[in-house]
Structure formats: structure tokens, C-alpha cells
């Protein structure tokens, strides 16, 4: 397995758990905000998926590129959008070339190589997933999954 494939597998262990936790969220909580000015639960979820897409698009494109988040009305919509982003990001990651990872790219005034942005992307997703788990607990979800997909027990 090369380094990029290892990255994809490692990231998917986190994204799979994001999907699992979204299955525990009901429509009535999709606009839950734990403090004034926070992302709502659905906004935070889509920020995670859209940001990963942004980082990968930007690395692939060689310059900053972000797509608008599709419209949504229900948690089913949110789950579907995340699922679509996951498939798209998986495909985009697989097409990255070594050169894409070496190119220096600016995001928000910070310049770093594609591989640095890729590490930052995963770290960003995990950090916000930590916040999302906190939201879930606050709305009363009792049994949360482990923070990443675990191997099968024997």
C-alpha cells in the first residue's frame, strides 16, 4: 500500500464513524446550537465534509477551490450529502499525483505543500468530529461510537 492509499484508509476510518453518528441524529436536532454563534449540528457536519473536499480540491487544482454546500432540509439530506462528499473525496484523493503533494499552495494566506495540507485536512476533520460528538451527547445521544472505526473483535 502506498502512502496515499494508507492516507485514504486512515481517513475513511474516521469518516465511517462520522456516518455512524449521523444515523443517531433526528431531524428535530439538526439545528441544535450549543452556544450563541456556534455552527448548528447540521452546519458543523457539512463543514467537516465540505472542508475535506475543499482541501483535496485545492491540492488537486493547485490553488484554492471550494464548492458551495448543497441545500438540505432534513437529516436524511445531510447524510446523503456527506455520503456524496465521501465518494467524491475518495475518488479525488486517488487521483492525486506526487507532484500535487509537493506543490506549494496558499489557503487563507498560509502557504504550504500539498502533503502538509492533506495532513491538516484530516486533523481538521478529526477535531471537528470531536466537537460533533460533544453536540450529540448534549442532545441526549447516550451511546456514541468509538472515535475511529475499530477492527472486528475476534
Amino acid at each position, binding site marked *: 500500500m502506498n*502512502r496515499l492509499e494508507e492516507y485514504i484508509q*486512515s481517513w475513511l476510518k*474516521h469518516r465511517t464513524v462520522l456516518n455512524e453518528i449521523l444515523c443517531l441524529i433526528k431531524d428535530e436536532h439538526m439545528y441544535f446550537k*450549543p*452556544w450563541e454563534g*456556534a455552527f448548528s449540528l447540521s452546519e458543523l457536519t457539512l463543514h467537516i465534509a465540505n472542508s475535506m473536499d475543499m482541501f483535496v480540491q485545492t491540492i488537486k487544482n493547485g490553488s484554492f477551490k471550494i464548492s458551495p454546500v448543497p441545500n438540505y432540509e432534513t437529516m436524511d439530506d445531510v447524510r446523503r450529502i456527506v455520503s456524496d462528499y465521501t465518494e467524491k473525496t475518495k475518488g479525488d484523493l486517488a487521483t492525486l499525483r506526487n507532484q500535487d503533494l509537493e506543490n506549494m499552495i496558499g489557503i487563507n494566506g*498560509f502557504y*504550504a505543500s500539498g502533503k*502538509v*495540507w492533506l*495532513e*491538516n485536512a*484530516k*486533523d*481538521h476533520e*478529526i*477535531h*471537528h*468530529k*470531536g*466537537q*460533533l*460528538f*460533544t*453536540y450529540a*451527547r*448534549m442532545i441526549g445521544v447516550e451511546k*456514541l461510537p468509538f*472515535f*475511529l472505526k*475499530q*477492527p472486528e*473483535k*475476534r
Partner: protein
Amino acid sequence: MRRDIVDQQLTKIYDYHVWANQRVFTRLKEIPDEVLEKNIQSVFPSILDAAKHIYRVDVVWLNVMMEKSFDEVTALMAVESEKIKTMTFADLENAYKNIANEYKKFFSSLGYKDQPVVTEHPQFGKLESTVSELVQHVSNHGTYHRGNITAMLRQLGYPGASTDYIFYLFEKQTEEAR
């Protein structure tokens, strides 16, 4: 990937983990102890419990990297858990500094070279990994729980600490340029 790049990455990722935890500790120091210990509805009973968990798991993985057996790690953690229970925030910060030093001593003992780690878990079976992969896991675990702590702080009306990997890299670059 070239071996020397993996070796550099090993210490850099761990250094990031320590830097990010330090940023969180610095923020937590500004907050009254009773807030850190306040029970709230969240993923941990309190912010202090969340911070203790990051420390506890760091201790576990260092011992796994040193190839201690599951039973040895379990016995060690039973003792460690008793100590953690009564730690104040100040105690935890000291304990964290100590475990970070233990990690650095361990990396030094390896000559800062990556190496294989084989461990056996009674439920998950045998894991063949490397020190660098486990260090990445320790860092990701910390990132996830620092995310918990950020949200818990906000829940209690306090700002979180910014711990993005990219900020770490820029801060280190600035330090090295001095």
C-alpha cells in the same frame, strides 16, 4: 516513502501533539478550577476528566510502543488510574510534562528511527504496526479529544484554543528562523 522522511515525521507529529496539548493547557490555566471540574452533559463528566483521558491514553500507547504485554499495560494502568483520579489540573499538567519527556527519551533510545511494534490484544488480536503509526494514532486521538474540550469550553462560556496543525508548522518555522 523514504525512511528518513518517516523518521522526521515521527518526531514532528509527536511534537505537534505536545504543542497542541500545551496550547489547551495554557487556555485551561486561565479558567477557574471549579469550572474545569464542573459536571456537565457531555462526552466526559468534566473538562478535567477529558484532559485526564488524553494523558491516560498517552501513557497506555507509550507502553505499547515499548512492547509491554497487554497484561503488563493493564496492571500499570490500574495503578496509574488511581493516581489520575485524585489529580488536580496542576498535577495533570506536571504529569503530562513527565510523560512527554518519557516519549522523548523513548524516541532518543530508538535513535529517532522508526521501528516495528507487535502487540497482542485479547479482543482485537495481534497488531503489527510501527512506532510512527502509533504516534500518528496518539496525535489523532488527542486531536479528537481536544475537539471535545473546545466544545465543552464553549458550552461553559469560554473560548477554546486554536490547535490546527498548520498553525503549529508556521509557529515552528518562525521559531527556527529566529
